[in-house]
C-alpha cells in the first residue's frame, strides 16, 4: 500500500507539492462545535438531583467542553495542513474523485424505505430497497433486481415469522402473506 493511496481524494487528484487545506475538515470542526455546544446547552436544562454530588450535568459538561476544544484543535491542525487518511478497502478506489451522486441516490432509497415500510410492509419495502440500491450502484438489470429483492424480502419475512416468531410489518400484504 503506497502513501499516495492514503491521500484523501481531493477535487484535484494531481499529486500536490503544497498540501492544500482540507476544507471538509473545517466542516467537521463546525459539526463538533455544534455538537459540543448543544450537549452543554442540553445539560443546563437538567434538574440537579438530591444526594448525588456529581449530578446529571457534570458528564455532559465535560464531554461538551472537550468537543468544543477538539473542534478548535481540528481547525488549527487543518490550517497547518493536516490531512485525514481516508479509509481504504477491497472495493475502494481512492484514486478517483468521490462519487457523491451514488451516495445521494442510496440515501434517497433509504429515506423512501423509512417513509414507506409502515404502509407497504417489509415484504414490499425490502424488495424495493434492494432493487433501488442495486440500481443506484449501477446495476442495469432492473427486472432481475426486483425479483432477487422480492425473494430476499419475502424470504426474510417468512424466516422471521416462522423461524423466530417475529412478525415484521406486513403492510399492504396483510392477510396475503
Amino acid at each position: 500500500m503506497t502513501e499516495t493511496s492514503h491521500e484523501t481524494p481531493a477535487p484535484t487528484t494531481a499529486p500536490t507539492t503544497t498540501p492544500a487545506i482540507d476544507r471538509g475538515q473545517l466542516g467537521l470542526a463546525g459539526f463538533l462545535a455544534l455538537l459540543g455546544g448543544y450537549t452543554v446547552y442540553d445539560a443546563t436544562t437538567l434538574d440537579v438531583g438530591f444526594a448525588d454530588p456529581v449530578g446529571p450535568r457534570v458528564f455532559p459538561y465535560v464531554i461538551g467542553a472537550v468537543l468544543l476544544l477538539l473542534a478548535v484543535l481540528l481547525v488549527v491542525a487543518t490550517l497547518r495542513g493536516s490531512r485525514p487518511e481516508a479509509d481504504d478497502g477491497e472495493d475502494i478506489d481512492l484514486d478517483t474523485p468521490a462519487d457523491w451522486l451514488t451516495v445521494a441516490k442510496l440515501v434517497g432509497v433509504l429515506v423512501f424505505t423509512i417513509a414507506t415500510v409502515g404502509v407497504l410492509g417489509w415484504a414490499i419495502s425490502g424488495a424495493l430497497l434492494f432493487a433501488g440500491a442495486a440500481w443506484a450502484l449501477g446495476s442495469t438489470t432492473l427486472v432481475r433486481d426486483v425479483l432477487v429483492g422480492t425473494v430476499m424480502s419475502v424470504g426474510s419475512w417468512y424466516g422471521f415469522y416462522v423461524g423466530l416468531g417475529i412478525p415484521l410489518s406486513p403492510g399492504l400484504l396483510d392477510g396475503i402473506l
Partner: protein
Amino acid sequence: MDSLNLLWGGLEAAVTPENLLWAALGVLLGTFVGVLPGIGPAMAVALLLPVTYGLDATQAFIMFAGIYYGGMYGGSTTSILLNTPGESSSVMTAIEGNKMAKAGRAAQALATAAIGSFIAGTIGTMGVVFFAPALADIAVEIGAPSYLAITVMALVLVTAVLGSSKLRGFIALFIGLTIGLVGLDLNTGQPRLSFGTTQLADRLDIVVVAVGIFALGEALWVAAHLRRTPLQITPVGQPFMGKEDWRRSWKPWLRGTALGFPFGAIPAGGAETPTFLSYLAEKKLTKHPEEFGKGAIEGVAGPEAANNASAAGTFVPLLAMGLPVTATATIMLAALQSYGIQPGPQLMTEQPDLVWTLLASLLIGNTMLLVLNLPLAPLWAKLLRVPRPYLYAGILFFASLGAYTVNLDSFDLFLLLVFGLLGLAMRRFGLPVLPLILGVILGPIMESKLREALALSGGDSSGLVNEPLAVIVYVLTALFLVVPIAVRYLLPSRFDRSDDAADDPSDERELVDR
C-alpha cells in the same frame, strides 16, 4: 481442576444434535458474511445478531460463537485471496498469505490459517476457562474508583496509543461518548439529548448504532469510491498442507497463541499489536528468511494464531469485568445484555451455567469452523465474485432488516441512516471506528462508576483515588501516554530506523476493526 469439571458440564449441556446444527448454521452464516469484501468480524456479528433473537440463550450462544469464529475466518480468507484485509487484525495475514496465493499456494495458506485459528482458539478458550474465574474473584473486590480507572485506561490506550492520529482518535472517542449520553439519566430519570422524543429517551440500541456505523457507513463509503476495475482473485483448490508445511507451521501457531492471548486479555485494544509482533517474531526466527516477502507460511501461521488467541483473550475482561476492549467484544456485550445477562464479576457466581455454556459454545464453534471450512474454502472463494451492486445492495438490505427487527419501528431505520452517514463521514475524515464504539458503550459505565465513587466519598474528589489499584492504573495510563513520546525525543536516530520497518503496519492501525 474445578474449572474443567464446570466446562465439561457446559459441554454436556451444549452438545446435542440440535445445538450442533445451530453451531453449523452460525459458522456458515458467519463465514458467508465475513468473506464478503469490506466486512470484518464486528460487522458480521452485528449484522447477524437479529438472527439469534428468537432462540433461547444456550442455542443463541452456540450460534453466536459460530458466527464469531466464522466471521473472523472469513476475514482471513478475503485477505489471503484478495490482499486487501477487511480489518486491521488481518493485515499481517495478508502480507505473506497473498504472496503464497499468488505463488499457487493459496490452499496451504488457507489451511494453515484455519488449523492455526483452531489451535489458537482452543488454547485461548481454555485460557479464558482458567483466567476469567480467577479475574472475576479479584474483580469482585474492585471498587468503583478502580473500575473507573480501568475504563479510562482502556479508552486512552485504544484512542491514543493504537491510532496514528491522536487528535482524530479523541474526536471519535468524544463523539462516541456523546452518543452514549443519549437517553434517561439513570440517577434522576431525566432524558438527555433526546430532542423531546420518547424513542431517544429510551437509550439508543447499540445494534442500530453499530450496524449503522460499520455496515451502512461502509456501504456508503464504498459507493462513493467503488472500484470499477475488478480485483484479481486467486483461484483456490481444496486446502491441505504437506509434511513440510506442518513442520514449519506448528511452532508459529503456538508462539502466535502465546503472544495473542495476553494482548486480548488486557485492555489494550485488540489484535493489531500481537499479530504485528508475531509477524516480526516469525520473520526473525524462521529458517527460511529468504521466503519472507515472497510467501512464507510462518508469516501466515503466526499472525493468524495470534489473531484468534487474542479474540479469545478478549473474553477474559468481557466476562469477568463486563469490559469490552474490541469492537467485536462490544457487540458481544450488547448481545449478552439482550439475553438479560450482565457480564461482570457477579456473573460467574450468579449464573455459572450460562458462562460455562458460553465457553463450551466457543469450543464447539471453533471445532465446527475447522470441520466445515476446510472443505468449503473453494465455495467461499467464489463469493468474492458476487457483482458489487448486489453485494452492497444486500448489505443495505440486511442492515435495514437488522435495525428494523430491534423494535419493529421505522424510527430505528431513521437512526440507522443517521449513524450510516456518521460512519461515512468518519471514513472520509480518517476517524477510527473503535474509539467511537467503545465510547458509546463505556461512557455510561464510566459515568455511573464516577457517580458511585463520589457518592461514597460524599463528593470529595479524593474518592477517585482512595484505592491503591486506581492509583496504579492511572500511573500506568500516564506512562503509556508519555513513554512513546519520550522515546521519540530521547532516541531520535533509533526511532527513525525502527519506524521504517514498522511503516506499513502502523499505517494500517488506523483501520481499526470494522
